Structures are given as structure tokens and as C-alpha cells.
């Protein structure tokens, strides 16, 4: 059996020292397999975003480890971590982080170009990713020429571009109206159905419901897990017994 795309083992993160010490995450164990969309829910300040930052190698855990496709990323030198993020991990930030001086297509192509892909190939991939999220026509616009919702979709395209195996999304539907938000979740869902793994942090139950599995986090600990649900085939069996 293949290694999970993402594995968190005993993951903990403490900020500050002494009386000001805050344990943001405590002993979290979690695996996400290929093809799986996992949603993380919990109140504000429960540790959801910390979990995602650690999973994406954007922060370093105080305890435990993060494995992406079986490889521990926790101890990797920064350069290697950055390369891994460019190639394998797509990250959608709550505050988008688009580069204002670059067009939508350039923003989306950037991680591939930084990774050595030719400009032409990177642009082609960027256009495909923009198409996937329904904003191909905005390829030549700069972020300040787009609405919040459009920028959000570009940020999602940047996370999906190329052949990312793991997509980490922190409230990716935040700036979107409900129909556009749903369209974005359909894109994430389709990516996972095609074999990627994704972790979606959200406080919206309606959005979390697109996931295969929902975990709850409170005060830095995982407190519940809906478990992976069975497909429609099991419903057919249930119907027969009615």
C-alpha cells in the first residue's frame, strides 16, 4: 500500500515561553490518503490554521513530525522544503498572497517557473489551472483589477497548477458568494477524485460536507472524526433492507 500523501505524527506547536506560553496544537495524529478530501472544523483559535501551516512546511512543529508522501519534511533544509512546496504542495492562504505586480497567469505560473519549468510550459499550465477554476478570461489582469472573489479563484488556481499531489486550503471560500464557493469546492473535489489529497480548513458546515471525512479540533486537540463515509453502494444495500 502507498504511503499516505500527508501524515502528521504527534504534532505539537507551542508559541511563547513562561506565563505567556500558548499550546496551539497538542499531539495531533492524522493521515490523508490519495483521493481523500479532509475537512478540518473548529472554533476560532482552536489550532486549525496552525495545523495547516505545519502540514505545508510553513511553520516548524515544537514536537512530532510531518510526512509528505512518506518523506519527513520537518527536518529538511529550507531550500528543500521550498522545492517540495513548489512541486507537491499547493497552499491557498486566507489572505490570498497574490503578487500585485504580476498578472493572474504570471501569479499562477510563478511556482512552476521558480522550479525550473520553461516560461512557455508554465504559462500553458497556468492557463489550464485558471480554466479549471473558471477564470481563464482574467489571465492578463492584475490583482487590483479583479474582485475579491476573482482573486480568490486565481489563488486557488495557483495552488492547483501543475501536478500538485497535496492541496492545503485555509478558508478558500471566504470571499466568495455561495454559488462561486460551491464551484470552487467542486474543483477541489474533482482534484481529489482524480487522485490528489486535500485538507480544507473551514468553519462552514456546508463546505466541509464536500469532504470525505471531517475532523474537529478544539483547544489544539483533535476531538472527533466523522470517519470516511461509504459510497452510494452502501445506501443501495440499506434500501434493500427497508
Amino acid at each position, binding site marked *: 500500500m502507498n504511503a499516505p500523501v500527508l501524515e502528521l505524527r504527534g504534532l505539537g506547536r507551542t508559541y511563547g515561553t513562561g506565563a505567556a506560553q500558548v499550546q496551539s496544537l497538542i499531539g495531533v495524529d492524522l493521515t490523508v490518503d490519495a483521493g481523500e478530501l479532509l475537512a478540518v472544523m473548529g*472554533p476560532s483559535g482552536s489550532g486549525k490554521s496552525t495545523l495547516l501551516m505545519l502540514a505545508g512546511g510553513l511553520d516548524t512543529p515544537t514536537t512530532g513530525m510531518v510526512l509528505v508522501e512518506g518523506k519527513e519534511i520537518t527536518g529538511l533544509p529550507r531550500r528543500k522544503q521550498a522545492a517540495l512546496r513548489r512541486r507537491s504542495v499547493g497552499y491557498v492562504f486566507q489572505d490570498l498572497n497574490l503578487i500585485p505586480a504580476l498578472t493572474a497567469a504570471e501569479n499562477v505560473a510563478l511556482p512552476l517557473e521558480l522550479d525550473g519549468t520553461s516560461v512557455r510550459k508554465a504559462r500553458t499550465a497556468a492557463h489550464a489551472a485558471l480554466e479549471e477554476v473558471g477564470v481563464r478570461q482574467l489571465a492578463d489582469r492584475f490583482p487590483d483589477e479583479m474582485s475579491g472573489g476573482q482573486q480568490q479563484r486565481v489563488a486557488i488556481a495557483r495552488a492547483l497548477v501543475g501536478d500538485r499531489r497535496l492541496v492545503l486550503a485555509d478558508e478558500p471560500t471566504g470571499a466568495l458568494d455561495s454559488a462561486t464557493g460551491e464551484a470552487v469546492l*467542486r474543483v477541489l*473535489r474533482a482534484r481529489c477524485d482524480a487522485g490528489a489529497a486535500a485538507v480544507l480548513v473551514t468553519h*462552514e*458546515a*456546508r463546505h*466541509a*460536507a*464536500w*469532504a470525505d471525512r*471531517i475532523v*474537529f479540533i478544539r483547544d489544539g486537540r483533535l*476531538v*472527533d472524526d*466523522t470517519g470516511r*463515509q461509504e459510497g*452510494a453502494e452502501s*445506501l*443501495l444495500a*440499506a*434500501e434493500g433492507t*427497508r
Partner: protein
Amino acid sequence: MSIKHGLLALLDQGPRYGYQLRAEFESRTGSTWPLNVGQVYTTLGRLDRDGLVVPDGEDGEGHVFYKITDEGRRELREWFDEPVSRAGRPRDELAIKLAMAVTVPGVDVAAVVQSQRAHTLRALQDYTRLKARAAEDDLAWQLVLESLVFQAEAEVRWLDHCESRLARRDLVAPAPAPLPADAGGGAVPPDTDDERSDDRAAPRRGRIRRGNR
């Protein structure tokens, strides 16, 4: 749930017989509220008695057709014009359960909230899966599913709210001490969740039929 008005709405589009009405009713609502043909004929009998429909002959196979009367059309228009009343809805078992849980000593209310939330989220996942599969142009079925989605979402939001209210209360005054095991143990009937899971599994046949499209 108004079978009577549902049937009138179908008959408004032309005469139909019992099995046809059942099939069309279920197809519009994705079998979320399955009907048996007995219910259809009982309802047709009442509609006939009240002058809202009349028998309209038989076909070669002995199916008795019904057609809507002017009086029936008036009744149907009134139904569409009037909002659905919020009075007289079934009692909300979950609200009652939570109201009891916060007052009966020894109940782990946070656990009640969490287990309900996980359960409701699973239902929400089911509805969402059905929605993902539903044909884009099947607006009637999409709307029924979205109604279930929004209701489940509202329940989850209310449970989140209960949880933060509880947290605030516990900050102000610690939770009451648990009663001895024999006194508090029976506060939450163990079979209640099973009943609810039947409720949430309502659109069963829809799942299958639509899923196979």
C-alpha cells in the same frame, strides 16, 4: 407535508391515474418523501369527495384517470399564494433534548452537542454527495436537496452556538456536579439517535435512482 396539494399541482397539468401520480410526485422530489399508492388513492378519494378532482374515465388497462376541477385549481392557487405556516410543525426533538440536557445534572452536554454535530455533518455529506451527482438541469431535485442541506447546516450552526453558550456559562459558573451514576445515567435515552438517523436517511430511494443516472 401536503400530498393533497402536490397531487393537485400534478393534476393541474392534465389528467393522470394513481400510479402515474405517485411516480411523478417521487420524481419531482427525488423520493425524499416516498408515497405508497394507497396514500395516493386515499387522497384522491378525499379530493373527489371535496369536489377538487373528478374521475375522468378509464384506459384500456382499467386505470382510472382523475382531472382537476375549477374548485381544485382555486385551492391550488391559494396554496401557492399562502406562506407555509411555521405553527403546528412537529416538535423539535433536538431542541427539547438540549433543553433537558442543560437542566438535568450529570449529563455531559458538550458530548451530546458533539455527537449530534458529527451525526448531522454526516447527513450533510450524504446530501452533498447526492447534489454533486444530481443532473444540473433537474432543478426540482436540486432544490429539494438544497433545502435539506440548508436545514442541516442551520442545525450545525445552532449546535456551534449552543457550544459557545455552554462555554460562556461554565466560565461564569462551573457546571453542576454530576449525580451518582444511578441517578444521572438515564437522562438521555440511548435510542434517540437511532430515531434521528432514520429521519436523516429520508431520501433513500432518490439516492439510488439518481445515483445511477
